[in-house]
């Protein structure tokens, strides 16, 4: 037997998989974007399965609230870069494969170069800006994309950009042509997620990648699977190719690179400054500054610094006169504060300096907790 590696013995003996299937995995190059709840199981299983080259891109650090579902990390890893920790642990799991670790945020300026080197991309990110960016990049580069996303107790899985038997291929824009307003959707930070859910959905993404690479079974090409862990119900729909959806995708590399996906998805605004937690704490006590909590009255956690509570719902009705020239807004996760900033910008224009706490009070508390550990 050639190239027998006992590590893969159960694959060799598997009907319809065997040496041939294992060889296909060994020759494959798979890029996993996001090493969080979905990314951990995807990376672990593809590493164990012997995918020859695995790229992983993540710009986040491990935090305590990640450990409920991101099972690749340990308590002692808190504060360390996920890309570095994951690379070490995955290489320990399987030293026979190549792991390329990128401690970067995937943006429109680096995505095409990054993705071009791989055969398949797996989207394990946690926000719409990244999801639309990855989708569009994969469309431009004709790369198969294994999509996965979760919400509370349900997950979605799909394969995009792979032609079916009739030669039709679809992408995320066929489902949702343009991004939703950030206020209408909640992420894991706000809506919560049962820890096992991204585990299950991530393993489904890894399964689809393996099926795609080795040609076994029926894949979710041009289909969207919605799976509920509450009753194990699954609902599969056919996604139909519709050229009009592609009109929202940048036409070429230049247009793609000029697209600001954070702005497009309402996650940043050109005239509202994003403040990271430490910058926020430095700025709130400066003179001529007002700090406004735009959450509804009584929302927890309470802020332990001086602020004025004007809920977003009240700001939408009426914006009061504000004397201070520096306005700092915050809310739970940074979405409503950005929306409030846009309302203030409409009223005050550039006469005031408007900034907001990116990631909201959740991010602030996580930063404080990590710094006092």
């Amino acid at each position: 037997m050639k190239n027998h590696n006992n590590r893969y013995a159960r694959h060799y003996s598997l009907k319809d998989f065997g040496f041939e299937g294992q060889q296909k995995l060994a020759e494959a190059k798979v890029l996993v974007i996001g090493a969080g709840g979905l990314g951990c199981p995807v990376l672990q299983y593809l590493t164990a399965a012997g995918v020859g080259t695995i790229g992983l891109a993540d710009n986040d650090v491990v935090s305590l609230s990640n450990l409920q579902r991101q099972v690749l990390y340990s308590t002692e890893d808190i504060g360390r870069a996920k890309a570095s920790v994951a690379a070490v642990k995955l290489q320990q799991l399987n030293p026979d494969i190549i792991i390329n670790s990128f401690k970067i945020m995937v943006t429109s300026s680096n995505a095409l170069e990054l993705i071009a080197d791989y055969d398949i991309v797996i989207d394990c990110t946690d926000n719409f800006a990244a999801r639309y960016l990855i989708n569009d990049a994969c469309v431009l580069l004709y790369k198969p994309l294994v999509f996965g996303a979760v919400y509370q107790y349900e997950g979605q899985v799909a394969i995009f950009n792979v032609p079916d038997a009739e030669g039709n291929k679809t992408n995320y824009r066929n489902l949702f042509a343009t991004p939703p307003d950030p206020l209408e959707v909640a992420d894991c930070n706000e809506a919560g997620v049962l820890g096992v859910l991204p585990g299950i959905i991530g393993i489904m993404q890894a399964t689809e990648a393996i099926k795609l690479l080795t040609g076994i079974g029926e894949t979710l090409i041009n289909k969207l699977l919605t799976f509920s862990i509450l009753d194990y119900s699954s609902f599969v729909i056919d996604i139909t190719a519709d050229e009009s959806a592609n009109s929202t995708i940048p036409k070429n590399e230049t247009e793609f690179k000029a697209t600001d996906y954070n702005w497009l998805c309402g996650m940043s605004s050109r005239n509202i400054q994003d403040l990271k937690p430490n910058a926020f704490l430095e700025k709130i006590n400066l003179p001529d500054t007002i700090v406004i909590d735009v959450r509804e009255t009584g929302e927890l956690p309470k802020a332990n610094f001086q602020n004025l509570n004007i809920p977003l719902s009240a700001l939408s009705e009426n914006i009061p006169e504000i004397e201070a020239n520096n306005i700092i807004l915050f809310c739970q996760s940074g979405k409503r504060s950005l929306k409030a900033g846009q309302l203030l910008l409409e009223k005050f224009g550039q006469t005031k300096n408007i900034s907001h706490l990116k990631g909201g009070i959740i991010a602030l508390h996580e930063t404080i907790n990590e710094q006092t550990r």
Partner: protein
Amino acid sequence: MAIKIIAFGQIAEITGKELTVEASDITILKAALQVEFPALAEKKYAIAVNKKLVADNVALSDNDTVALMPPYSGG
């Protein structure tokens, strides 16, 4: 025509998981839902008729099943 609706995620939080609506096409169905659930007006969701995604208005027949599927972003 009685149309069975299955809702997912945040849409189900507004409408409930399953309901029945009288409508002869998708435009009428969406309008009827918005009257009953005004919060739907601000929501984005994909629509599938009998498990096939539809992008435009299509006619509905008795006992069709329409799925309302919002985008998920968590990971």
